[in-house]
Structure formats: C-alpha cells, structure tokens
C-alpha cells in the first residue's frame, strides 16, 4: 500500500482513544474515532476504513453487536477486538463472528503493532 492505513477505533474511553490514536499515528495510520458501537457502524459505512479496532463494553450499541453489523455490511473489512472482557467465551464468540484478533486490555504497543500489520496485509489484499 502506498497510502496511509485508515483505521476506525471505537471505545467509550476518551483517554484510551487519545492514547491509541497517538500510537496508531506513530505507525503511520490515519485514525477515525467512534465512542460507541452505533457510531462505529455509521462511521464504518460512511468513511470506509481499511480496518476497525473495536471495544466490547460500550454504551448504546456494544462491540459484539457492532461487529455483527460490520461483518454483514463490509465482510472484507478486518476487525480487531480490543477489550478488557477477554473471557474464553467472548474470545471464541468474536473470532467465530469473524474478528481477526482479540487483544485483552491493558494492551502493549507490540500487540497494537502486530494488529496493524495484520490489518495492513488484509487491506493490501483487498485493494
């Protein structure tokens, strides 16, 4: 890819979005933010990101519902779950639904870097 990777991050924590934005921008990504699942669905449809990083516990529409809709609307878009709710059941459920990875909070920079690389590879294939 010879352009910046465009990523949508959805988390109700403004602080987490700020920190994650900073890390993703350092990895040469363009970042769009959503503060809940409903906003994530709308922004995914309107902004057409290359990938989505999605929290699970969010107000209005949660991450699992948002994942389901995004997979239906844009099945080719890679989604990485980033959540504190990393029980084996949630992990299996979201991977079965099509998420490509699940990062348990608190995350490390290496985990984010790896997720970005996975999304970059998928996005390159989709082009």
């Amino acid at each position, binding site marked *: 890819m010879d352009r910046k990777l465009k990523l949508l991050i959805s988390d109700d924590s403004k*602080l987490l979005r700020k920190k994650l934005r900073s890390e993703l921008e350092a990895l040469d990504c363009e970042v769009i933010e959503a503060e809940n699942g409903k906003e994530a669905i709308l922004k995914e449809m309107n902004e057409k990101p290359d990938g989505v990083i999605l929290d699970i516990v969010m107000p209005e529409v949660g991450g699992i519902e948002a994942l389901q809709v995004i997979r239906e609307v844009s099945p080719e878009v890679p989604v990485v779950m980033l959540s504190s*709710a990393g029980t084996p059941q949630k992990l299996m459920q979201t991977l079965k639904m099509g998420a490509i990875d699940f990062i348990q909070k608190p995350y490390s920079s290496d985990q984010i870097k790896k997720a970005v690389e996975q999304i970059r590879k998928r996005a390159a294939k989709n082009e």
Partner: protein
Amino acid sequence: MNRRYLAQRLLNEGHLSQKELAELLRQRSFGAFEKAAASLEGTDEHPAMTAVRRLAGPELQIEVEAYSEYMELLMDSLMDFLEAPAVIDTQMVPPDETSAVFYAVSQRMDGDMSIVSGIMAESREFAELATRYSEEQFDAPEDEYAMDSLEEFLNVVNGVFSVREAVKDEEIDLEVPRHGKLMNPMGNQQLVLRVYADFGMFYVVLASDEFM
C-alpha cells in the same frame, strides 16, 4: 513474600497500627516492614483475602469469597498498573465516615454472579489514582480525562476478574463503567473498605447491586 504482602500481614496481625502503616507507606519505608516481619509467625500467602474475610460479617457469607478474591486482584493491580503499594485497613468503616461527598467510579459485573465494584476518594487522592493509571498529570477529578482514567482502570481490573471467574465456569459480563459524585453508598450486600496507599487513603465499595 513481597513487602506489600508483609505490610498487610503486619496490619492483619496487629503488629502495626493504622497510623504507623499509613506513615510507612507514605514514606515508602518498605525496609521497616521487613524488620517487623521477624515478629510474624506462620504463613499467609493471601493476606488481602484474610483482611476481607475478617471484615465481612455473617450477612456476607455468600459474597465473601468473591469479594476477597476481587480485593486481592485489585491490590495487585494497584501495584502493577499504578505502582501504588496499598493495604486494606482491618477496621470497619463506620457509615458516617462516608457521608461526605466523594468522587467515585463504579462498574457492574453481571451473569452467574452479580458484583458492583467501585472506588471513591477525595479530590486529591482521586486525581492521584487517575494520574498514576494514565501517566498524565491531573490536578483535579474534574479534568475531562481523570474520571475516564479511573473508569478504565476499574474496567481493566474487572476484565481480569471476569477472565479468572470464567476459568471457574462463572460467566460474567461487564457493563459500562459509571462515574460521579457519591455520598453514602447504599448497595445490597455492601462492603466498604478503607485502603491505604503511599499517596493517601481511599475507599473500595463492593455490593451485589448499584450503589451510586
């Protein structure tokens, strides 16, 4: 046994008073805990759990195991994520002590068991907790990111708790954290604990339903 566990044991077994403990934590004089440890007999690998078990009355017979496991995780997390050595006070918190207005965050965990956990603190201690978790400087809880920081800390701790419970086939889901000002938390099956850390004192509230 690490120094914080030693401090909890020394308090549990009456070798240190609250005042002495608070002062040693404030000065981060951990060597003093090791010196005093010579007076300890027997072993206790889970002194935080012991403290909670002693504070929980017979009315919390069902909840006490979950509450004590939760508190051990929270105390470990304060050290791991905030570098804040902390110890649970062994004295009950009288209701009138929490009748002032505190800054608070809480989160409900629901499913095979129902627990709401929360942290309440006065302005300075709340800002310090938020500062340490986020590694950003907050001078007051009203800072737009300060509440967010402590909500996220609680969310991360509760996420780890839910994973540990899942291993025991107890499925619990996290709800969205809440924040605000709180006086007199009023939950069912409630336990209010006073926690001393190196930067001051705050409260942890555990209940079976929302207390904010």
